[in-house]
């Protein structure tokens, strides 16, 4: 079921009539334009810049993972190279007095990402699948090692910093205030998202889907899957470079970690959790990821662990990600069984939450004893205070987990039954699942 959906082509999932297409994008533009009048504080605008670059980056990654079926472990290399080229050009433009204002700098980053992708892509896209993944990781390691060696260009461990206000003004804007940067980022997010959406609608986008699903048949039709993968790779590099340049503009610096392991991992997490099978999936994922990484760290010191576990659970139980899982429910909606399914969810949620609460309690207690062993045992996690050294805490955690697990198994069987019902009705009426 989920498998079918995740491999379904984008076009069938979103049957846009023309008018709705324009309406949606116009609405996005209006929301982006109105955002600073609603959220006036500089910090929320900074957060948006963060989210915006993450969105472009995740969308560019989905050209590879979702559209073409290429799992890259080194996508941050193109992001990072975009960031470094942006920073260097922001330093060189005022130095040589070139007439290039700031809004064009992301283009420089994009071209840098594109050129690097043209260079590395031909070898790495020779084969899809696991081999591609391994090579992408090798190239990523190569890039990080090189970045630490070529200290003049990459600035070593400290990175390179710049000043965005030194560039020639653009209609009176110097991009000092956060709101001007916001509009620059928002503009590029809009343009890039639109372009990447358009890309999925072109013949190239369609043939990418075909290469993902069945490269042999594509060869029979007369296309070379290698070339198709290569083109997709180059486009992904271009938009990753734009994202990197935008990040460099908002932080006014670039660092070797921009092309490293953590960044590549983050984009895999956010894209996959958001859902690779629909266009908005990576957008949802990027917002979700940035939000969690900003807010979870306030609640618990080991949020990366929870995030990793969440990712594993999504891979294991909801391969469609957030977007794909939501889309899955169109079928029961059409056969009128959505209410029943939601009811079984609500029942299953109670023991599942107990299981999660017990697990979190156990983890936080263990963390207290290993990481902060000498501190006060009365700790606080997720806003709840408890005594980490008392036996009662352990008992509660164990009981919660046991009850949650065994009752949860029963209630999830109910969910499966409700789905089977809906599927039976759907196949009787000939509605595709």
């Amino acid at each position, binding site marked *: 079921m989920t498998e079918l959906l995740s491999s379904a082509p984008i076009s069938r999932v979103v049957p846009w009539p023309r008018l709705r297409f324009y309406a949606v994008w116009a609405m996005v533009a209006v929301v982006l334009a109105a955002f600073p009048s609603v959220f006036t504080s500089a910090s929320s605008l900074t957060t948006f810049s963060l989210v915006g670059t993450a969105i472009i980056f995740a969308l560019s990654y989905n050209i590879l993972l979702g559209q073409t079926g290429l799992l890259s472990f080194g996508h941050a290399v193109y992001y990072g190279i975009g960031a470094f080229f942006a920073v260097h050009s922001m330093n060189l433009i005022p130095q040589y007095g070139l007439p290039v204002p700031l809004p064009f700098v992301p283009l420089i980053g994009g071209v840098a990402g594109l050129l690097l992708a043209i260079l590395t892509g031909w070898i790495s896209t020779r084969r899809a699948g696991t081999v591609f993944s391994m090579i992408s990781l*090798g190239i990523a390691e*190569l890039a990080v090692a090189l970045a630490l*060696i*070529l200290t*003049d260009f990459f600035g070593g461990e400290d990175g390179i910093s710049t000043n965005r206000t030194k560039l020639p003004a653009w209609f009176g804007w110097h991009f000092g205030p956060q709101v001007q940067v916001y509009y620059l980022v928002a503009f590029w997010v809009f343009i890039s998202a639109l372009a990447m959406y358009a890309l999925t609608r072109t013949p190239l986008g369609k043939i990418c889907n075909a290469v993902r699903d069945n490269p042999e048949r594509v060869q029979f039709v007369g296309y070379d899957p290698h070339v198709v993968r290569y083109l997709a790779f180059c486009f992904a590099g271009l938009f990753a470079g734009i994202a990197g340049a935008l990040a460099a503009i908002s932080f006014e610096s670039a660092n070797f970690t921009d092309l490293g392991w953590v960044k590549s991992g983050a984009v895999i997490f956010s894209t996959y959790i958001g859902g690779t099978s629909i266009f908005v999936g990576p957008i949802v994922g990027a917002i979700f990821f940035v939000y969690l990484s900003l807010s979870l760290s306030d609640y618990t010191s*080991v949020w*990366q662990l929870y995030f990793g576990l969440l990712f*594993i659970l999504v891979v294991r139980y909801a391969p469609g990600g957030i977007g794909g899982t939501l889309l899955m429910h169109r079928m029961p909606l059409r056969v009128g069984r959505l209410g029943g399914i939601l009811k079984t969810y609500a029942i299953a949620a109670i023991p599942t939450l107990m299981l999660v609460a017990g697990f979190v309690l156990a983890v936080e207690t263990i963390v207290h004893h290993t990481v902060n062993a000498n501190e006060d045992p009365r700790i606080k996690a997720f806003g709840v205070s408890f005594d980490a050294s008392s036996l009662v805490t352990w008992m509660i955690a164990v009981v919660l987990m046991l009850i949650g697990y065994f009752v949860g198994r029963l209630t999830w069987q109910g969910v499966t039954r409700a789905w089977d019902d809906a599927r039976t009705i759907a196949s009787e009426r000939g509605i595709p699942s």
Partner: protein
Amino acid sequence: MLELVIISALNGVLYGLLLFLMASGLTVVFSMLGVLNFAHAGFYMLGAFFGFQISKWFGFWWALLLAPIIVGLIGAAVERFALRDIHRSGHVAELLFTFGLAYVIEEVVQIIWGKDPVDYRGPPSLDFPAFSIFSTNYPSYKVFMFAVSVAVFVALLVVIKRSRIGLVVQASLTHPQMVAHLGHNVGLVFTLVFGVGIGLAALAGVIAGPILQTQSNMAASLIALLFVIIVVGGLGSLAGAFVASLLIGLIQTFAVSLDGSLASLFGPLSPDAPQFLIRNIWTVTIAQVAPIIPYALLILVLILRPMGLFGTRET
């Protein structure tokens, strides 16, 4: 100079053997199950930390025995209860799962043992120089590492080539369906092979821990190196993995002890040459570029010989 060459060669071969302990499991699992285990180096790290903990409680020899078994069992459980189900969602999902697993293992190790290196020492009974070459004493612990690695290698070879289970494993590599039709429990064979592969990686962790640093970031940089080894050696080829492991081990060890650079070869750049941004290329030493040599080798192999050194199918 001769002293340097001999010591570097010994260290290089030793490092190569350690790499092979890990790469052998990785490449066999890959060709049998089609799963590229991203968390393989994570299990190596778990082996090192379990070894540290057990040797702190019961002594090193118990750690040598118990840690690989425990980690191997964890690995077998991962194959049985998670990977087998995810297998149905395709290779991308499997790879993503092991990727997430590697991330979680690193986080868990950081939570339990912290980010700083732990003080993991070999057994005191091996704390004496075995022999000396010129003026350098060669520690007997390294000789012991040699012995363990070679013993495991020989045992592996005998089991695979000479025993009945080895025959089934070899057959399952290429024709899993046929083996299942003949009445063998292929699922069990897969779980077994996965567990043993993980156990070998953990063994490498236990014996390498005292010499290399036992730290929570020891896995992240290693996994890419292992990928290089199995691609360069040829996917699914044990002999190729062996040769590639030794090759990478020797290259890495020799490169860090060499000190040449383009500047020392051609003389420094003239002052009026462009001094901008890329002049580093002229002055970096071979020791500094040591970390990138394996990846350069990977790209070279992919261009010149895509099936790897000993592979039969193109990567």
